[in-house]
Structure formats: structure tokens, C-alpha cells
């Protein structure tokens, strides 16, 4: 009895009951529970939220000391972009839909040669918010914009997510497709400054509620008409999913947060064929797209990644393997994510795919990819080595130093006109509640910029590109384009429950540039899907005309090549129709317009 009492007291006070069950040790089971904390804590992380892989940053090397010639200033307020983008409550996110935000677009809706701005918007569950709407801003050509939403017929409040810009009816004016919950919308551009919602007429109104996220126009069958690919995230309904605090499994770092995507039901993407009469047919099953396993699909990019002349489609998936639909050229696709190396990272781990950028960071003439992920993980930089095979070169390229933030919209873009595409992405937490307990997991976080050092190496610039880069916001979509036509790339950013940011780029240093606008004839007029390879200064850089990029967004359709010290460039153009053309000896610092089968039809020098 004495020993019994002694034992009871002994074990009770040493706390053996609490901690003596040793943790699992094998890597395999650590993987189940995720790395980064004790097993019991990480287990609930995995159960409730997005994948935080607990990856620690690589050490930063010595700064190169090289000057960076791009400088960014947020001019949104001055430009007239003052309305906040409402998206759920500002200080908490009870449902996953309130945390995902939406995209933005640069487009020239009135064909005046100046980029206009289209901003998507969310709403709040409690009811409509006054003034919250998708917004179209017309470029006044003086650094300011005018809100023309009402005049354009685009007033609409809801849970909008993604936007893709393209001329689906080949009438010369860019149309808008918008994804969202519970329905998607197609707006036809009437060519007179107004738009008409033609979703139902076009056959794009789907039954029931779906959460469309990424979307892109893509002429997958090379008939000269833009078809439509839509990724769907998960089966969502406010009435079906417990809000924050109701399910103990839904927590992050011990703080109750919104549930998902893990534990919720993923959805399949969809493909619609453009029938050429203003209507679309659902060809998801027939095309093979429907054969892929359902995943938590977000951003979508369509481009000819293997150079076979047919558009492939890459879908970033959140916490599940990303998808690569290889176009077989016969109207069908085969899912080749794993085989291509684009589904997972180099260790075979799936990541929380958010945004996708396509570009040629190593200027070898092939399109590479950059995918953003959750915090405590790196982005993934995939180098295209040909034949639809990609190498994960993230760590080798020096990108492993940054793991602090949740990454969203991104770009492989030459921001300083030195001829080497840089990497940029925006960030922001999905769980504003967490920072109250863990200040290191801030809701608003800075933008991330890695400058290209050449040799497939990158260096993160923390303070060298202007205060606007270091400013903290909870951002989602991002679009790149030259809104002030001064020969560099500016950046448009969606900020949750704040006005957008418009980062005006003022490049110094004298780097040359060339802009290329394509007009399709046999191809779709927007030339979406074309690949232009520019040869300059011994480099060979490929860029694709995209209808969607980054996170649920769409950028300037005019391709921008920084040329560095080169004063001329040659172009090879692979049109989506299959036609190939070359243009030689183009002088730097101009916008050239190339018409399919005709050649250069316009030259405009600006920014000098």
C-alpha cells in the first residue's frame, strides 16, 4: 500500500502521463503528421488545414552587391484605385472561401493601346456590402484611372475568384470570363465600352453550386477559337462546412482556424469547347480532363510546354499533386503531372499549390514554371529540360532562403530590363486569427522579389527595389503589365479588404526592352497560346501569350522582353494555329505589333 501511494504520487508529479508516450520517429510517419512540431500538434495541423511542411529556410549567402535598377512605388491611391476589395471579414476568416481571395487583370478593353484594370471582388456571408463589386477602371493615359464599372455593365457582388481575358468570339475585343462560387460568369465585350452577361446563352451556367477558381482561355484543338478550362477547388457550402472553432481538427499552431482544404472534398476541373456560334459544350469527359483524380485545383496556366504546337494545361493544386494535362493533339489530354515532374517537389512531396507563373528564367528558349505554396515551405521552380520533363531546381537556384510567407500570385518577369527574368510573388496569411497568439505568423506580409543573377541563380532583394516591395498586405492575385507605357513592367496586386496596390516601376540603368503584340488571323485574334522566342545579346528567351497567370489573374497580353545592353532582337513566333514566323533585326525600345501571316504591322516607340 505504501508503495502504491508512492507510485501514484511519483507518476503523477513527474507528469509521466502527459509525455511518456514517445513520438513516432520514422520519417514516413513524421510525414503523415508533417514536420515542424511535435507529432500531436502537427497531426491536427494536417487534419484541419493547408499543408505546412515545416521546411526551414536555407541560409542566405553574401549579397551580390550588384545594383538593381527597378524601383517600385505604390501609386494606387494617386491613380484613383481607392475602393477596397471586400473579401470576407477583415479580422477573421471563418470559412475557407473567405480566405482565398481573388484575381486581378490588366486588359485593353477598348483597344486604345493603354492598359485598363479589372478587379474582382468578394462579399461577406452576412449579406451584401455597400460598394463591393467587381470593378473596371479605364486608363486615362495620365497615370490615373476612371471607374467605369457601372457604365460598362459590370456591377456585380459575389464570391468572384478568377479571371481570364480573351477574345472568344474573334470580334477584336477582349471578353471576360470570371470564376466564383456558386457560379461562373461570361461577359461578352460589346465593343462600345459595355459588356453583356452571356453565361446562360453560352451554355456555361452549370447546375448546382460549384467553386470555380482558376480559369483560362485556350484553343486546345487549334480551330482558331478560344475554348475554356476551369479548375474547381472543392465542394463548398456555408451550410455544410463547420466554421472556425466548431471542429477541433481545424486549427493551425494550436489556434482554431477555418476548415480545409484537407478533410473537404476536392473537385475535378472542366473543359468547355467553343462551338463558334457563341455557345460552349462541356467536353470534360470526352477530352480526358475528367479522367484525372479530383484535386484541390487553384491557378491554371495554358501554354505549349513541350513545343509540339499544342496547348498543355498546368493546374496548381492545394495540398494535393498538381496536374499537367498534356495535349495529345487529337482533342484529348493525358494527365502527366508526375511523369513531367510538375506534380510534386523533388522529394516527391505534394505542396500547397496556389499560383503558377510561366516564363524562361534561364533563357534557354524553353518555358519554365514557378509555383507558390504555403508558409514553412519553399516555392517550386521547375526548369524545363525538354520533352515535357521538368527539374525542380528550387534549392539549387537559391530560392530556399525564403519560407516565411504564404505565397500567391507570381511571375517570371524581367523587372529591371537586364535581359534576365526575375521572380516575384505576393504573400499573405489565410489565418488572421493566428497572429494574435503567434505574432511571427503575421496576416499581412511583404512582397517577395528574387533578382536573376544569371547562371540559374537568384538573390532575394529585401530592401533594394523600393518601399512598395517591403510593404505588408494580405495579397492574393497579381498581374504584370506596363500601364503607363514607359517600357517596363508595373505590378497590380489584390489586397484582402484593402484597396489594390499598383506598383509603378521606374527602371533606371539603361537596360533596353522590346514589347511584342500579336494579332491572330488563323489563330484566335488574341493570339493566346502563341510562343515568342526573342534572341538578343546571345540569349534566347521564350515567352507565351497567356490568358491566365499567377493566382487567378491575367496580365498584359503584350509580351515584354528586357534586352539588357542589346539594341536589337530577332523573334521566332509559334502561333497557336501551328504557323511559324520569324522577324529579324528589331530595334530595341519599341512596341511592335505582328499580325499572323502578315508580319510587323505596327511600331510604336514610347518610354523614351
Amino acid at each position: 500500500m505504501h508503495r502504491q501511494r508512492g507510485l501514484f504520487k511519483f507518476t503523477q508529479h513527474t507528469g509521466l502521463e502527459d509525455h511518456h508516450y514517445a513520438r513516432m520517429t520514422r520519417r514516413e510517419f513524421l510525414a503523415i503528421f508533417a514536420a515542424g512540431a511535435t507529432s500531436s500538434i502537427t497531426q491536427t495541423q494536417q487534419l484541419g488545414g493547408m499543408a505546412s511542411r515545416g521546411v526551414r529556410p536555407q541560409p542566405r549567402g553574401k549579397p551580390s552587391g550588384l545594383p538593381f535598377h527597378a524601383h517600385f512605388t505604390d501609386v494606387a491611391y494617386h491613380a484613383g484605385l481607392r475602393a477596397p476589395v471586400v473579401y470576407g471579414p477583415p479580422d477573421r476568416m471563418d470559412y475557407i472561401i473567405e480566405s482565398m481571395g481573388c484575381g486581378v487583370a490588366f486588359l485593353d478593353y477598348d483597344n486604345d493601346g493603354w492598359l485598363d484594370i479589372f478587379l474582382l471582388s468578394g462579399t461577406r456571408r452576412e449579406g451584401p456590402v455597400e460598394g463591393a463589386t467587381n470593378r473596371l477602371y479605364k486608363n486615362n493615359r495620365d497615370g490615373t484611372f476612371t471607374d467605369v464599372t457601372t457604365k460598362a455593365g459590370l456591377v456585380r457582388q459575389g464570391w468572384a475568384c478568377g479571371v481570364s481575358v480573351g477574345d472568344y468570339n474573334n470580334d477584336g475585343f477582349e471578353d471576360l470570363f470570371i470564376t466564383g462560387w456558386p457560379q461562373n460568369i461570361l461577359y461578352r465585350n460589346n465593343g462600345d465600352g459595355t459588356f453583356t452577361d452571356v453565361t446562360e446563352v453560352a451554355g456555361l451556367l452549370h447546375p448546382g453550386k460549384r467553386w470555380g477558381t482558376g480559369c483560362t482561355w485556350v484553343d486546345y484543338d487549334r480551330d482558331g477559337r478560344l475554348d475554356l478550362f476551369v479548375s474547381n477547388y472543392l465542394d463548398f457550402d456555408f451550410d455544410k462546412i463547420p466554421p472556425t472553432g466548431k471542429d477541433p481538427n481545424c486549427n493551425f499552431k494550436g489556434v482554431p482556424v477555418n476548415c480545409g482544404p484537407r478533410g473537404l472534398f476536392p473537385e475535378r476541373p472542366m473543359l468547355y469547347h467553343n462551338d463558334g456560334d457563341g455557345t460552349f459544350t462541356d467536353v470534360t469527359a470526352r477530352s480526358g480532363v475528367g479522367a484525372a483524380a479530383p484535386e484541390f485545383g487553384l491557378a491554371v496556366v495554358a501554354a505549349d510546354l513541350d513545343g509540339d504546337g499544342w496547348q498543355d494545361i498546368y493546374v496548381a493544386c492545394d495540398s494535393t499533386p498538381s496536374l499537367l494535362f498534356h495535349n495529345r493533339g487529337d482533342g484529348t489530354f493525358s494527365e502527366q503531372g508526375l511523369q513531367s515532374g510538375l506534380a510534386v517537389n523533388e522529394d516527391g512531396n505534394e505542396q500547397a499549390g496556389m499560383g503558377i507563373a510561366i516564363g524562361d528564367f534561364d533563357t534557354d528558349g524553353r518555358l519554365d514554371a514557378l509555383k507558390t505554396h504555403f508558409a514553412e515551405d519553399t516555392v517550386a521552380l521547375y526548369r524545363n529540360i525538354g520533352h515535357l520533363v521538368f527539374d525542380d531546381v528550387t534549392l539549387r537556384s537559391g530560392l530556399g532562403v525564403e519560407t516565411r510567407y504564404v505565397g500567391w500570385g507570381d511571375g517570371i518577369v524581367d523587372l529591371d530590363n537586364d535581359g534576365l527574368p526575375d521572380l516575384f510573388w505576393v504573400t499573405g496569411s489565410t489565418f488572421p486569427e493566428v497572429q494574435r497568439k503567434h505574432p511571427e505568423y503575421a496576416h499581412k506580409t511583404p512582397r517577395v522579389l528574387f533578382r536573376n543573377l544569371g547562371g540559374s541563380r537568384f538573390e532575394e532583394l529585401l530592401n533594394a527595389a523600393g518601399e512598395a516591395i517591403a510593404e505588408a498586405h494580405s495579397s492574393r492575385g497579381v498581374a504584370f503589365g506596363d500601364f503607363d507605357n514607359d517600357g517596363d513592367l508595373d505590378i497590380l496586386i489584390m489586397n484582402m479588404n484593402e484597396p489594390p496596390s499598383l506598383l509603378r516601376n521606374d527602371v533606371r540603368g539603361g537596360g533596353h526592352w522590346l514589347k511584342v503584340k500579336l494579332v491572330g488571323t488563323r489563330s484566335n485574334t488574341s493570339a493566346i497560346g502563341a510562343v515568342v522566342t526573342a534572341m538578343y545579346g546571345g540569349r534566347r528567351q521564350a515567352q507565351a501569350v497567356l490568358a491566365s497567370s499567377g493566382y487567378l489573374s491575367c496580365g498584359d497580353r503584350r509580351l515584354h522582353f528586357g534586352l539588357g545592353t542589346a539594341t536589337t532582337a530577332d523573334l521566332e513566333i509559334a502561333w497557336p494555329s501551328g504557323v511559324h514566323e520569324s522577324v529579324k533585326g528589331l530595334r530595341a525600345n519599341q512596341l511592335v505589333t505582328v499580325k499572323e501571316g502578315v508580319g510587323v504591322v505596327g511600331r510604336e516607340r514610347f518610354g523614351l
Partner: protein
Amino acid sequence: MTQIVAALLVIAVGISQGQLQRPGVEAHISRGVQLMQDQLFEAASGEFEQALALNPEDPRARLQFAVCLLSLGRNDEARRQFEQVRKLAGESRYVTYYLGRLDLLSNDYASAIRRLGSVAEDPPFPDTVFYLGVAYISSGDVAEGTKWLERAAQLLPRDYRVHYRLARAYSSAGREQKASREYDLYSQLRDEHKNTEKDVRACSSALRTEPLATAREVCHRIYDPNDPEKLTLLGQLFGDAGAFAEALEPLRQAVQLDPNSFEAWHNLGVSYFRLQRYGEARAPLEKAAALRPEFYGSVVLLGATLYMLGEDDAALPVLEHAHRLNPNDTETTAVLEKLRAGRKKE
């Protein structure tokens, strides 16, 4: 990482044999090890720093500190500490392994190949050849990299990373059939992980909310008589829910399949202990304490078991060891005093 920690402890004990420690060093190391077990590396590194402040020549503390720094991504500092360990304790294949991995992380593939290659025939950890294969692949030598990855696949047949890398290597060499087989293996292992994750979630939830009979049925989905890790996990889930009798069988099977699993032995010992079957608790706890001599939880429980069995002479040195590992445990101190007083009376 904790598997490596366990191995490190054994190595560290080997390195430190014959060396006298100042008071407090062991306690800091023990606390540091516990914190590493919980993956609280910042806090753990502080403990090792305190141990090193007391005795800068202690290679155990320095080795643990170096591993901690590596886990924290402080690679340059980690490298310096590993070099120090080498100076203190001489050449060690474990240190070579870590330096090789640091080389790999800093993209110095030639050095990584040299270091990891030098210990590949007698690898300190099963994943040594995996990293060697990765180093070769990264350096562009796909053929040699493939060779080592194939070896890694034999040593770590259930490691999906190995199969994925191997599939990629085959694919880049145009060996599509082999690539396809490895992709299938990779996918199968990943699916198993996902299914296990779901099963663990269901089991955990059932143990929390359902009667044991119902929960047992749900948890049985995790049961795999051929997989010691799943068996250990199942035992752990039962144990965490206080269902110690249920935990016994899977844990007994786990230790048979993997006699070097510290977790399985420890948890089996704990289960017996909590069921007051002290005679049966003794052997598993002895095994656990032998595998992880600096893990306070096992040592103190072994001392308590011996004490409960009335084997005070055997309990005394074990509890004294536990006390050195955690001098702040007043209960251990009290029991020790009682035992020492009893001895004096005799």
C-alpha cells in the same frame, strides 16, 4: 529527425565513454534531447549551449548542438560545430555524413560525393546512400546517381522519396519501363500514407468520442501485422487514449518486427507499467533505456518499475541516473532519499 537523434545518443555515449562530466551537463543534454524529440530546436540548442558552457570539450553536447543547428537551417554554424566535434572526438562517419549533407545543401556536389561516398559502404544511417545518389544526380552524373538510388531503394524500400527520385532518374535516362515501375511504387506508398492519415484521424476521433469497442473496430484499419511503424502508431494511439490493454498487442508485435525501435519498447513498457504489470514492464523499459540512455522518460520509469518490484538495489543507480538527467524532479529526489535512507538503516 528523431530517429537520427536516437542514433546520435548511442554515438554520443560511445564518444564520451571514459570522460567525467561536470554536474549539470547531463541534465542539459537530457533536456535538449527531449526538446529535440519534440522538435523544439531553438530551445534545445539553448540547452546544448548551456551544457557546452559548463564543458566545452563535451563532444556529445557539441554533436547534439550541431544537429540542432542543422535542423534550424543554421548551416554555416552547424558546419563549424561538426568540425569541432571532429577535432574533439576524431574522425567519425556520423560527422562525415552530416558534413556531406551540408555540402549537398550548399550545392557543393563534389564535396558531398566525396564525403558521403567515403561512408557509403558502412553507412551511418540508411539514407546515406540516398543522399549520395542525389548528389550524383545533382552533379549531372545520372548513371552513378541511379546506381546509388537503386541501393537506397533496397535499404529503404518504403521511402517514397527514394522511389520518386529513382523514377525521375530512370525517366531522364529514357528507361521508361523502370521509371513507370518506380512511379507506381511511389504512388502506392504515397496512397498508403494518405490512407493511414485518414485512418489515424478516424481512430483518434473514435477514441475520443466513441465507446472503446467501437473505436477498436475503427482503429483496426491501421493494423498491419507486417509493418512495425503502423503497429507502434496503433499502440501509441491506444496509449494516448488511456487504453493501455489495447496497446499491448500491437506494441508486442512491433518490437518483434523491429527490435531496435525505441518507441515501441518504451511504449510497451509504459503500457505494462500503467497496467501495473511491473514484472512485464521491466524488460521493455530496460531495452528502451539501453537504446536511449539519456531519455529521461524511459530511465525514470525503469527506476520506478524496479522500485515497485522491490528491487531497490537495482532501482537506486537507475534513479540516480534519472536524477542526473533531470535534477529538478523533486519526486525522484524524494524517492532517492527514501531508498538511500532505507539502505542506511540496513
